[in-house]
């Protein structure tokens, strides 16, 4: 897998979105969305609630299909893959859900083992245990291994959710509102974790958020989604200094200055 990752051209985007449109009934959520994400890069998609940010990453993961346009992930056009090919692609994509989406009826260990035992059947018990320990240590929650999700705090659940995606060694991470509903200290911990995941697991990421602190702390590049389309793209400061009134009004509600 490492060789495959290294062989992939450095200038070739790992995610390439072109002319993407998506509507739900008469509500057009995404229109003419274009985005490239390059290897080893954290791209933050910033925008208000209901602007289609989550829809965008669900299309990337193949959970939703677009009305038109193309989404290529690691060179594969997601909408043209059959079920088997999509499953194979998903092994390379990690998706951290807004509400963590931990399996309620399973312990933390079972949550982490779940994707591993079903996708890598050749693994022995010792190797599975080692993988679980590795990702739990990476997110700093080794002590929670036998706890149920209901016994964890919001921040812990988020981190376990991230650990569950890391166990398959994904090349791409998609974070859906990673700091939503968390206190400021836990937000900083999650931001640090996102940056650590990028370094330690050599991932490229899209981080969906409306939290400017998260965007500044984690984003190599920021893309501002307004009314279903990207209004501005660049570094955090470039987007922050935009003269676009709609972007300015978004920033004015935050206290990052």
């Amino acid at each position, binding site marked *: 897998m490492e060789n495959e990752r290294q062989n992939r051209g450095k200038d070739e985007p790992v995610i390439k979105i072109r002319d993407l449109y998506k509507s739900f009934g008469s509500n057009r959520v995404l229109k003419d969305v274009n985005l490239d994400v390059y290897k080893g890069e954290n791209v933050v998609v910033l925008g208000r609630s209901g602007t289609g940010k989550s829809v965008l990453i669900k299309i990337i993961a193949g*959970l939703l299909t677009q009305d038109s346009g193309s989404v290529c992930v690691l060179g594969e056009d997601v909408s043209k893959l059959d079920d088997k090919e999509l*499953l194979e692609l998903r092994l390379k994509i990690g998706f951290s859900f807004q509400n963590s989406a931990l399996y309620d009826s399973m312990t933390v260990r079972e949550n982490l083992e*779940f994707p591993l035992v*079903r996708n890598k059947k050749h693994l022995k018990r010792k190797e599975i245990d080692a993988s679980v320990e590795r990702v739990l240590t990476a997110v700093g929650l080794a002590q929670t291994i036998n706890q149920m999700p209901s016994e964890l705090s919001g921040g812990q659940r988020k981190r376990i959710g991230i650990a569950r995606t890391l166990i398959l060694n994904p090349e791409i991470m998609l974070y859906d509102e990673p700091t939503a509903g968390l206190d400021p200290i836990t937000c900083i911990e999650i931001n640090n974790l996102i940056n650590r995941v990028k370094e330690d697991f050599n991932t490229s990421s899209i981080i969906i958020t409306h939290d400017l602190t998260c965007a500044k702390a984690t984003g190599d590049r920021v893309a501002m989604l307004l009314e279903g389309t990207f209004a501005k793209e660049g570094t955090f400061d470039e987007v922050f200094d935009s003269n676009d009134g709609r972007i300015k009004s978004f920033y004015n509600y935050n206290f990052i200055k």
Partner: protein
Amino acid sequence: MSVKQAREFIVSKGVDSFFVDLNSAVKFNIRFFREVFLPPYEGKEIIKQCYEIGWKSLPLISLTGFITGLVFTKQSRPSLAEFGATSWLPSLVAIAIIKALAPLVTALIAAGKVGSNIGAEIGSMRVTEQIDAMEVSAVNPFKFLVVSRVIATTVMIPILMFYTGCVAMLGSYINVHTNEMTSFVAFFEQAFSKISFLDIFSSLTKAVVYGYTIGIVGCYQGYNASQGTEGVGKAANASVVVSMFLIFVEEILIVQITNSIRG
């Protein structure tokens, strides 16, 4: 409703959505039969679900079965006594229990207990994105959640039906023995003298069909739940209502088919 909105429907909103639902339900059933034979097989999950559905339903099934047998015998006695035919009680009760009551009572209890549980569980997994989480983990949630549960209900409802029949007959025997001092052997000899292989086969068929119905309806409702916690409640409720309705329709059909075979 504006003219433009009205044109969005072919017949009317209700009729259109009925056929859309029907189409989606048919596809769901077809997907089940396509995936049930394909690997990977979720053996552990099937056993877990059999335990959840079968073993955990035993107390309620035992109580209901026992009371059904006891009360049915008690209520039937005066009518038979008028003709001096109380000795026919074991046969009457056996016919009623084996041919109709055991499958139906088991199915209705299971539709309420198991069906609602499946609908609510899968529904809450849907609205909290746990099913999406399985998909993005490259795990087939249909196989893990739906196929395992439908297999479990299809296997366990016939076993529970057999158990209900035994408990109901026991309830009946206790009442008959208390009143007529009939021996255990005599009671069961007379009870089964009027039961044919076709009766047992027909009941078994009913139980298999009911089991499949309860499982697939619960899974379908849960899998297609939406609108947050309200959707979970609706899924649980619809699981019970729709499966009970289908059980009665299937009961009529199977009885008709059995009678036409009997000739």
